[in-house]
Every structure is written in C-alpha cells, then in structure tokens.
C-alpha cells in the first residue's frame, strides 16, 4: 500500500458545533504518538458549521474554550486548524495527467459553489494513482476560525478539513465504508482495499432513527463505491450510534481513534493526525 498523505502535525486544534478539541503529538520514527488530547465543550449555538457562514456565532465563548484548550495543550508549536465537516464542498476526483490538481479541482467545483469561486480557497489531498480528494472553502469562513485560534494565542501553521484529515488516516486501513461524523454534517467514504472509491457528504439529522438512516446511507455508499459492506463509525456521537446498531444486530464497529484517547473516537480527525 502506498501512503500518500503526509499530515503529521504536532499540534491540532479542531472546531465543531459542540466543542473545540485538540491534541499534541510527539514525533516517532514512522508515525506520530499522541501526547495529550483535550476536548472543551461549547455552549449551544457558539459555532454553526456551514459553507456560507458566519460560523463563529459567539466569538467570546469560542475564545474562552480555545484558551482553556490552550492551557491543556500548550502552544509551543504551530497548530494545524481542523475545520468541521460541513464548511467545505468536498469532491472525489480523478485528475488527468499533466494537470495541476488544484486548478482542475477549481474547474470542477466552481460552478457548483453557492458563492463566487474567487471567494474560495481550494486544495486537495492526493490519494495517489491519479485520484484526489479536493475541497473548496469560503475564505471568509476560514478567516473566522483563524481569527478565533490566533486570538486565543495559537500560532497557525495550516488549515485542514476534518473529512480530509480523517480520510488521510483511513488510507492505512483500507476496505469498508467509514462514516465520519461531525456535529453538523457527516461524510461517507468507501474503500476498495486502500483505494477510495466513493465519497459523499450529508448534513446531520440527529434524533430518532438517525442510526438506521446512517446505516442505509453507508450501504448505499458501499454499493456506489463497490466496497465489501463493513461499516465503521467515527466522530461525534459515534459510540452511541454503534451501540444502538449493534443492539439491533447490525455488524458495525467503532472506527479508529478510540484506542488513542478515551474520547478519541469522538474526533474523526484524530486517526488521520496520527497517521
């Protein structure tokens, strides 16, 4: 298997609607090792992940939570900011040979964005063998999160998206359908061996029947991507959803991250940052 992702941050600060979370990593020879993981709850409505914005609805509350997170993690390293699922438009694409991946992504996504393409920032996660997972995020949305992090004393190193960094971590695991849960949105990634074959995003619809609906979405994604049907859940609320589905006799499991930290399975990005 060829590993093409290289996201090996030392410090991660991740945003979502219900919390800010983060991790500090120690460098090991082949992969990162988790030193500290922390999660700080946000008051309801403080952050509203969306593609159009505004996202940071209560900067004071978000700033306090980030300050608390910073006290837990320290700020000695440049931080990778991870924006929540739902803020970007994500697309799995096969990139023609000899083209610039970002330019091609911009060409493919520009017409479908709900704002002018000039207002977006584009980048791709290269998956190898001519395939990439690309995303567009509105600059004004990114700036909101950047200002919040820098205002709390973090030094920004780069900005990534939760579904992209999660997929980077899944490249090692390969097969199956992975449900990557954010507070406001979710992504479904189907793999055949180590090759990402389908990627879909959906807004979350929490409440009665969500587990069953998500399982049906996962099965549709498996059909679309030609996967073997094994389903894992990781991210916000993953543990409860898995318990519910297992109780119904469905063969689902918790995704990576839970073995690294008690709340690790609630952070879809964690396994990716550790890869």
């Amino acid at each position, binding site marked *: 298997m060829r590993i093409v992702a*290289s996201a090996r941050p030392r410090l991660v600060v991740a945003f979502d609607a219900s919390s800010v979370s983060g991790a500090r990593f120690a460098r090991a020879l082949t992969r990162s090792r988790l030193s500290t993981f922390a999660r700080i709850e946000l008051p309801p409505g403080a952050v509203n992940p969306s593609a159009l914005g505004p996202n940071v609805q209560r900067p004071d509350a978000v700033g306090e939570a980030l300050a608390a997170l910073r006290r837990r993690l320290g700020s000695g390293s440049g931080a990778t900011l991870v924006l929540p699922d739902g803020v970007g438009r994500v697309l799995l694409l096969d990139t023609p040979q000899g083209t610039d991946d970002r330019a091609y992504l911009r060409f493919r996504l520009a017409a479908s964005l709900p704002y002018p393409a000039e207002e977006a920032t584009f980048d791709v996660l290269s998956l190898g063998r001519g395939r990439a997972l690309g995303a567009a995020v509105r600059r004004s949305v990114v700036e909101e999160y950047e200002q919040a992090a820098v205002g709390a004393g973090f*030094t920004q*190193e780069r900005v990534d998206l939760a579904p992209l960094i999660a997929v980077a971590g899944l490249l090692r695991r390969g097969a199956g359908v992975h449900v990557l849960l954010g507070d406001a949105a979710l992504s479904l990634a189907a793999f055949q061996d180590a090759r990402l074959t389908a990627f879909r995003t959906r807004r979350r619809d929490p409440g009665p029947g969500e587990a069953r609906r998500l399982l049906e979405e996962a099965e549709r994604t498996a059909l679309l991507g030609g996967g073997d049907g094994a389903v894992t859940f990781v991210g916000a609320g993953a543990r409860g959803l898995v318990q519910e589905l297992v109780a119904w006799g469905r063969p689902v499991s918790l995704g990576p991250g839970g073995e690294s930290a008690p709340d690790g399975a609630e952070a879809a990005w964690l396994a990716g940052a550790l890869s």
Partner: protein
Amino acid sequence: MSAPDFSTRPRARRPPAWELALVTGGLLAAALGARAVVGTRAEGSAARARLAEVRGEIEGARRRVSDLERRSGDGVTGQVWLTAEAPPPRVVAQVSDLLPPDVRLDALSLTYGRSLEVEMRVVARTPGAYDRLLQRLEASPRLKDLVLGAESREGRVETTVRATFVPGS
C-alpha cells in the same frame, strides 16, 4: 506530496528538523571557519613578526661580521687574538725550547699585529752550535718566514733572527 492547506493568511512555516540541522551545521562550520581564519591571521602576524626579528638578527650579525672583518683588516682583531693565543711567556718558553745547549737568547722582541713578529738576539758559542740552532728554527712549526741577520763568526756567533711566530701548543 503535501497536506492540504486552506489557510487565508501567510503560513507560519516550521522548518523541518533536517533543515534546522543543516542550518545549525552551516553556522557551526562558518564559526569554525571564522575562528580558523582569525587563528591563521594571528599565526601569520606572529610569523611575520618573527621573520622581521630574524631578519634584524641576520642584519645585526652581518654588521658585526663586517665590523669584525674590517677590524680584522686593521689588525686589531688579529692582535687581540694573538695576544690571547700567544702571550709573551708562552712565546718565550717555546722559543727557549728550540735553543741548543750552547746557544743563549740575549734578547727577544715581540711585535703583535696582524701576525706576531719575533726578533731574537742569539749568541752561539760555536758556529756549529749556530748551525744546529738554524736547523731547529727551520724545523719548528712555530716559526716561519725566517730572516737571518748579519753574523759575526769570531769564535762565537752573534746574530739577530727575525721570524713570524705561529701560535700552537
């Protein structure tokens, strides 16, 4: 291969460890190089100073040699040397050793200059004794350039012999 980056602000890039190591190594090499340059310059200055000193010593030695040669030409140096190597008591003793038993030395005059000139006033009891004296004087390594004075051969021989004395044991 690089991780995605959606930043809208300039990235605060943290240089990788190998870059830091490279920069540190470069700085260290530069510091060592600078130190070596300073050390070499100091050594160069010291060597130049020493060279100038040696040149001065050589020049001084040359001056002294020239002075000595000049003084030697004046006879002063030779006189000093002869005085040390052939003091009068030693010359008298060595000349006396050359005399046969029936020859006496009435007077001895020593002139110290570029060479030591000896003038001996001798009296031989017989002409035969005088001939033996001349043989001894001629055979002696201590004397050269013998000049014989006028002889009076009325039974005994009285004469003056001049020679250059060659110092030696």
